[in-house]
């Protein structure tokens, strides 16, 4: 038998145009997952292990970090990658368990809204944070406040 059938009964599925969200969502989870391992453990290491360890944590410490562009961008990356990673996971779980179309839509809308609000708020805090609020006791503030 050497009969060659040119793709028997094969109606090639037409790919709907546009972006394949399911594929990019999957790739995003893998890539952000790897990046988050570095970002989160770097964050924990710097905050809790180096120097005085957990005792060093106070307003001055956080204020000092958030006025350094390196840590601003570190935290921004951490915020965006982690929040979208978590939201996408929640979306997947919602698709699994919320069988009712309306409930499904409401839950996913709520997740989307919460994600957007938190991303905007978080980014705003990171870049507009004032480490030297007026009228605060000098011993609670980062050292560079009194220098200037």
């Amino acid at each position, binding site marked *: 038998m050497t009969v060659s059938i040119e793709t028997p009964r*094969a109606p090639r599925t037409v790919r709907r145009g546009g972006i394949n969200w*399911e594929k990019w969502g999957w790739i995003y989870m893998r890539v952000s997952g790897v990046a988050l391992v570095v970002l989160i453990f770097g964050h924990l290491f710097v905050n809790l292990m180096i120097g005085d360890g957990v005792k060093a944590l106070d307003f001055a410490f956080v204020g000092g970090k958030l006025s350094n562009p390196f840590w601003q961008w570190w935290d921004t990356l951490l915020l965006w990658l982690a929040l979208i990673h978590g939201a996408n996971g929640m979306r997947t779980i919602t698709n699994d368990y919320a069988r009712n179309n309306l409930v499904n839509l409401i839950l996913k809308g709520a997740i989307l809204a919460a994600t957007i609000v938190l991303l905007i708020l978080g980014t705003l805090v990171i870049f507009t944070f004032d480490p030297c609020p007026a009228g605060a006791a000098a011993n609670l503030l980062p050292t560079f406040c009194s220098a200037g």
Partner: protein
Amino acid sequence: MASDVLEKGGPRAHDVVPTFTVTMIVRRFDPEVDNEPRWVDYDLQMHGTDRVLDALHKIKWEIDGSLAFRRSCAHGVCGSDAMRINGRNRLACKTLLKDLDISKPIYIEALKGLPLEKDLIVDMEPFFDSFREVQPFLMSSSKPKDGKERLQSSEERARFDDTTKCILCAACTSSCPVFWTDGQYFGPAAIVNAHRFIFDSRDEGSQVRMDILNDREGVWRCRTTFNCTDACPRGIQVTQAIAEVKQAIMRGKP
């Protein structure tokens, strides 16, 4: 040793096999009588060499002939007697009773995720539908050289050897939590059978299959829970096969 016993003319090897009492709790469902499936107990005298399938036969032949289940070859080749045994998808003909904890009852039920028809029989059509959709047959536009056969090196053959072992018993697909909740997902078995042809050097339809599996309900739904690998009675590394298909789709070629 059995051979010693035989030489001494003592009891035959068959009598030496230990016997024990085992309680089987089978999830019965008769669509003409029952509204809901019900659990029914059976106490059986079984031998140490018996499998779950032998116990089911004993129930059907000696206690209740109305018990319905599928089985054909009874030796792990045809793949028709996959069922949930103590909560895990197994072939009844490949599961020895003595390997289960026989101090406790053994729970037998039909595969999950497929429509229950009667007792241990489920409707396999949705499973076969997704199998058909990945077009599991050799696609080629050329005639083989010398009009005889399509040659392939042993390395090329080894590339997809693992996924040729599938017997379509549905143990993997019906153990997949995504398949349980998402009625559209292709399921592990369909992807395994697509893998078998995607990585076959003689096949020319890889792109078609990868396009099909790149769909919204295709390989991206897999969450690597490894339930399928655990359930496969042929020991196919199902989750790995799915991961290889994902990588092939990202590369755009096998």
